[in-house]
């Protein structure tokens, strides 16, 4: 009981970071199980397991839980653990607010999960919640989903506010903005982005709520509103949200690649500019999700160009990571394997994004499995890979024990084979015309769908290896003892303290004299 009280009231950034990460793992397993149910249903044409309405509920909840429950909390966990350690701060700027931000999450997901047991079932209109599917035709549980999004949004806003205040005010003496690690930079920009977009989502779902119950017609043509406006508002939030997920991932990869290349990060300043540039561009690309909704040609051309423009800063980053590895003394520990996997596969996902950004081509790809394939390459082999890489990279610092490299290598290779088996054929299915979000399909899509389902299950099994490797270290304290430095060429303040990181990180205020990118 006392332990429960401790975790409920802890204000230590490491504890809260750990809670974020465990919660994220739990949500990842839940939403992953839903993905597997979806794949069972799609493993053969015809009805296998799920009734179509339940299938739609699974698709909706898989998306919502993965994005808001698994990926975002995992990245927030990294921010909580690493930012104070990396900038030499004692804790986050608002520790109690930090505790509250975390504990809002279980409340929000409790609400969201409860919708499965309500009359009419859980929301069934996809994570994009398009009106009028979510207004006129939404099940009663939609209101609970809206409330849950408000709670989760508040949690994200408070976390973002805390991160910005921490980075601006609590840096150690000498830790100028120029000397800050890229991970911290990526989170500073991401937090601003979060603070700008989460209230927009809150406003949009509030409009949904008032349309459903209070007689307004924001999204109802019958009352002078416009359902298309929902798509504009949603994607004004939704596209930057994708970058909220991706940018901290960029930060993690930018920490790992120099360590295992034994070279400083190539063009570190440009990496920061590129992240800032991507953040800015993310606000002016949203209509690429709506090319087929009848917007004018001029608007399409503008948004096509801005969308394609995102490729420039992204290419700078990929080039800089590659240049960092060039002529480096590379070793391939698990974090590096996942970082290289990220580099290849995220770039592949990015190419899919370029194809989707081209207006005439998008007419063919829109609402097909091509989009599903592209998105999963970006989020699974992009963001998820970087999260896994980050966990392997910093796990020895967090726990004081080394993980098993053998298990890590198995995890990587199985995951990579499985991810490609799962998400690559989705592109072919999409090109052949298979629509997304359907519980059944025409016979000609059967073969590829079978491969995708097999890949999906293999990917699920591979993640159990990861869970086992982490539990082995955290709960059973198995594995070699880690030194303070852990990795030979890791740079930064977090490597100057003991492993595991003590409850009070810095007994003496550290003084920073040079950037982590300036090596002797």
């Amino acid at each position, binding site marked *: 009981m006392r332990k429960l009280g401790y975790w409920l009231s802890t204000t230590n950034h490491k504890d809260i970071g750990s809670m974020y990460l465990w919660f994220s793992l739990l949500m990842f397993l839940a939403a992953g199980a839903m993905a597997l149910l979806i794949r069972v249903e799609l493993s053969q044409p015809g009805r296998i397991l799920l009734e179509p309405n339940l299938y739609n509920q699974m698709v909706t909840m898989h998306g919502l839980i993965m994005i808001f429950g698994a990926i975002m909390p995992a990245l927030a966990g990294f921010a909580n653990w690493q930012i104070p350690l990396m900038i030499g701060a004692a804790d986050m*700027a*608002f520790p109690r*607010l930090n505790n509250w931000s975390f504990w809002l999450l279980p409340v929000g997901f409790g609400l969201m999960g409860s919708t499965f047991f309500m009359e009419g079932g859980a929301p069934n209109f996809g994570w994009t919640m398009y009106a009028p599917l979510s207004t006129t035709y939404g099940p009663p549980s939609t209101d609970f989903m809206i409330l849950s999004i408000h709670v989760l949004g508040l949690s994200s*806003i408070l976390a*973002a*506010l*805390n991160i*910005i*205040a921490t980075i*601006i*005010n*609590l840096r150690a003496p000498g830790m100028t903005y120029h000397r800050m690690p890229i991970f911290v930079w990526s989170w500073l920009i991401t937090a601003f982005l979060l*603070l*700008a*977009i*989460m*209230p*927009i989502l*809150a*406003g*949009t779902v509030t*409009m949904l709520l008032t349309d459903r119950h209070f*007689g*307004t*017609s*924001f999204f*109802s*043509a*019958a*009352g*002078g*509103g*416009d359902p*298309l*406006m929902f798509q*504009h*508002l949603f994607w*004004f939030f939704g596209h930057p949200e994708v970058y909220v997920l991706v940018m901290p991932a960029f930060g993690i990869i930018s920490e790992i690649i120099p360590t295992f290349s034994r070279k400083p990060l190539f063009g570190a300043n440009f990496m920061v500019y590129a992240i800032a540039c991507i953040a800015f561009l993310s606000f002016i690309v949203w209509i690429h999700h709506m090319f087929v909704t009848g917007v004018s040609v001029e608007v399409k051309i503008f948004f096509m160009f801005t969308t394609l423009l995102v490729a420039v800063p992204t290419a700078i980053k990929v080039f800089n990571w590659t240049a960092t590895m060039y002529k480096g003394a590379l070793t391939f520990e698990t974090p590096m394997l996942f970082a290289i996997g990220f580099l290849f596969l995220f770039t592949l996902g990015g190419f899919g994004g370029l194809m989707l950004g081209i207006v005439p081509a998008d007419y063919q790809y829109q609402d097909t499995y091509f989009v599903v394939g592209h998105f999963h390459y970006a989020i699974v082999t992009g963001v998820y890979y970087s999260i896994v890489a980050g966990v392997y990279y910093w796990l020895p610092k967090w726990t004081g024990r080394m993980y098993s490299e053998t298990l890590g290598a198995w995890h990587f290779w199985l995951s990579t084979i499985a991810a490609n088996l799962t998400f690559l054929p989705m592109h072919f299915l999409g090109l052949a015309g298979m629509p997304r979000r359907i519980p059944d399909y025409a016979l000609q899509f059967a073969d590829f769908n079978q491969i995708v389902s097999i890949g999906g299950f293999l990917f699920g099994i591979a993640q159990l290896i990861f869970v086992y490797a982490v539990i082995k270290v955290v709960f059973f304290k198995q594995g070699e003892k880690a030194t303070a430095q852990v990795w030979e060429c890791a740079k930064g303040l977090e490597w100057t303290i003991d492993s595991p990181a003590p409850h009070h990180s810095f007994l003496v205020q550290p003084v920073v004299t040079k950037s982590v990118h300036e090596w002797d």
Partner: protein
Amino acid sequence: MVLHLQALAATIGLVLSMLLWVRGANPAIYAFIACGVFLAYVTYGWIKDTIKVLDRTRRHGLILGFFGVAMFAFSYAMVPLYHILCHGNVALPESASSHPVDIDIMFEKYRGLPIAITVSESQLELGSGESRLVYVTLENHANKALDIKLSISTNPRTIKPYFGLVTPDVIHLPAWERTQFPIEVKFNADVPDDLWQTAILLLFQDINGVGELGKTDAWEKMHHAEQIGVRS
């Protein structure tokens, strides 16, 4: 203390003036605006004083919090912005139309159906929720009985769901006979505020083949309908 009293007075004034405004007292809008401006001024003063006494970290937290609130407000500001940028008008979040709508009643018979048609009223003025009966008289000028179907369309087409039109199913009209029947025209639901005029077209056709929509003689020939008895 003074600040609290000022804020209380401004809030009460705002609520009262809003109530009066909603009840139709037009000058109340000026009181509403004045109270709103005063409340904004008081809030600004409060924020300024609070920020002054806070340490740097808390000040940043507060400013960032206000930024979040401002972005929430921006999501609502995007509603009129969207309507202006995409439709060239302002948003109409309220749905009720307060003014009546003029409705023209027109009729047409398909492919020379041998009947004479008259309607009791060719123009109606209906408000939201109102209804009216229009009497239609048909006279058969043929030597055989006709089974006539009535289809109704509206202009613009999008307005049709607002009408509750009660019409007969099939009208059986013996040779050289006359019949009269009512059509109830009513607005089921609130109509868009920018609709001032609409038209209803009554289209009569023979269900026994002659004059069926879209199926011309050329169509008949093309599908060899006579041989295979599609129209039997």
